[in-house]
């Protein structure tokens, strides 16, 4: 049975802030980065005072990167929130998304009227390849880490199977890279904005076939913050609160090898006949992403996501992940992710990509530039998506980015999607302008 959250209180996001995502922020430690993001958010709701905040929800992925256990409390005390309640949330790449959902629950349950969700990662403290080794520890250390020891290798195997099942091409993947890097040219918070061609992406250094350096997001330092509140606080301090109308979380087995080959979990607008003969999820699709979408749609009352969502910020750690994820979210059928992502439906109408796009933009995916171009400071990433989505729904993108290009016109409902290691934890959160 699907839970609808019918007994919970309405929950709003009232402000957000982020640091610039960068290869390194040597002048700020994690506490100061979080403070910067927090102060930005607080400045956006000037009548909200710290004494009106009931507690915090802190997220960072890796103790190895941080080399500081209990960094969460250090952020909480740095923000002046002691002795109020706080807890740390961790779930791999989905850490930020899980953090926002935890803050939602704090408010929805009535435990808090106002909760700050803050997340960060400091990945510059080790070499890129040591960093990759740390990240690979988020795979089974008996069976997977000693053999592969490399996340890009895992995703490369997944997309290779996607290509085999559905005919997805590396050119389609390259177009995702072009789109997200070009969008980021208008986002000053992004780490790696760039104007690229298909040839640039394909001729970049090969990392794990078929993924090149430009199919993969970078490691980053950064922090992000969202202030989550109940109706009374939201109405009192915020002119344009955005409501969280649906949350969904899905999971799958840590070892890719253990993923089942069964039937597709159907969304309301799909039928079993759409997927005759497809063995699901295998390693080509993310069952956790589909489950998260199904739960979030049920709670938000979304019957057909193709028609009822205005934009999406999703976890494109790899170009291939974006193609796989638009299928999980039901923006197109399983198997159509490649042509759907390359054709134009997910592009911004007013950005020059240097590409022929046969399809009119319809549901912009990663208007911010996504992880590919913004960077991926893991514990902050899911919150970063929330910040950009908040500004889209408030219509304040131009104000916060200093550039109106990325504002999605008449954005009423947005979807944010956070994803952990090969699809083990995935969150989908639906945000709406009331």
């Amino acid at each position: 049975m699907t839970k609808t959250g019918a007994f919970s209180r309405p929950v709003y996001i009232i402000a957000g802030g982020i640091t610039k995502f960068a290869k390194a922020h040597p002048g700020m430690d994690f506490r100061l980065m979080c403070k910067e993001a927090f102060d930005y958010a607080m400045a956006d709701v000037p009548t909200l005072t710290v004494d009106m905040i009931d507690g915090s929800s802190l997220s960072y992925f890796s103790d190895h990167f941080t080399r500081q256990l209990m960094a969460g409390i250090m952020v909480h005390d740095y923000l002046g929130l002691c002795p109020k309640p706080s807890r740390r949330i961790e779930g791999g790449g989905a850490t930020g998304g899980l953090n926002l959902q935890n803050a939602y629950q704090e408010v929805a349950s009535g435990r808090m009227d106002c909760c700050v969700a803050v997340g960060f990662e400091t990945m510059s403290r080790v070499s890129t390849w040591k960093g990759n080794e740390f990240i690979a520890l988020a795979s089974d250390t008996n069976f997977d880490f000693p053999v592969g020891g490399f996340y890009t290798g895992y995703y490369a195997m997944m997309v290779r199977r996607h290509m085999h099942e559905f005919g997805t091409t590396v050119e389609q993947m390259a177009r995702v890279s072009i789109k997200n890097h070009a969008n980021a040219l208008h986002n000053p918070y992004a780490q790696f904005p760039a104007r690229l061609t298909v040839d640039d992406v394909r001729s970049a250094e090969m990392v794990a076939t078929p993924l090149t350096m430009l199919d993969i997001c970078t490691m980053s330092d950064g922090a992000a913050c969202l202030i989550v509140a109940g109706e009374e606080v939201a109405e009192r301090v915020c002119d344009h609160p955005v409501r969280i109308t649906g949350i969904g979380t899905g999971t799958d087995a840590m070892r890719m090898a253990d993923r089942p080959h069964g039937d597709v979990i159907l969304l309301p607008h799909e039928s079993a006949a759409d997927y005759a003969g497809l063995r699901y999820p295998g390693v080509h699709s993310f069952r956790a992403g589909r489950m998260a979408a199904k739960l979030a749609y049920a709670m938000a009352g979304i019957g057909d996501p193709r028609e009822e969502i205005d934009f999406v910020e999703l976890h494109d750690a790899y170009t291939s992940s974006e193609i796989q994820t638009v299928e999980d979210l039901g923006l197109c059928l399983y198997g159509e992710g490649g042509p759907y992502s390359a054709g134009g439906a997910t592009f911004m109408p007013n950005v020059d990509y240097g590409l022929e796009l046969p399809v009119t933009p319809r549901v912009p995916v990663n208007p911010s530039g996504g992880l590919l171009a913004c960077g991926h400071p893991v514990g902050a990433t899911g919150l970063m998506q929330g910040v950009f989505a908040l500004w889209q729904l408030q219509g304040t993108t131009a104000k916060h980015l200093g550039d109106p290009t990325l504002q999605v016109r008449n954005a009423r409902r947005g979807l944010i999607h956070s994803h952990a290691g090969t699809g083990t934890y995935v969150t989908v959160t639906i945000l709406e302008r009331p």
Partner: protein
Amino acid sequence: MAGRDKSRAEVGAEGSAGRMSRAEAGAKSSAGRTSRAEVGARGSTGGVGPGRAGADKGGAAGHKLPETLEGSILYNLDPIILKWHWEVDYVHSYAQDSPFFAGLSQQKLLGSRCAACGYVYATPRSHCMECGAPTAWYELPREGRIHTFTTCYYGGEAFLEETPFTLVLVEFDGVDTLFLSRLVGVEAEEVRIGMPVTARFLRNSKFRATDVYFVPAG
């Protein structure tokens, strides 16, 4: 079997090494106390404590930590960025997965089969993910097919020296799940999904998942 005996001997040796290291840990903690005592001793230039040092030398100037030639590797001054080394040896138990690794040393690839629902796992797990019942060990066929693959030109730092290497997920007839391994003996561009492959084993086991690898069949 000789191989079997050897592996047992090694496990035994490792086990006693484990006991030794616990003894060492005890020694180390008492060494910790000693070194604190030493600091005190050195600081007091031959006395037994800071109090005495003060008495000998007269005044607070006598309190002094020893100077050493150790320094720090500094990358930057503003802000100060320095090198911070950290390493650790873990005492890792394969616990209920141990028979799989013992099997590799006997040239056997062991998966597991659920006694209750019949689900067969290529990568073993001692309880069934489908129904929760205990599983039994199940010897996999040596021959399988490539379900998917990639050739890695980079990797985690521990594996960089081994690049490029090819990873495969192997599927087996009659088995419900897959097995992650490395493929050798074929050029990267010649690897194909569906290609038949055969398991090979290291002659001298390291008791790691890489004790088994795959080569093209035939």
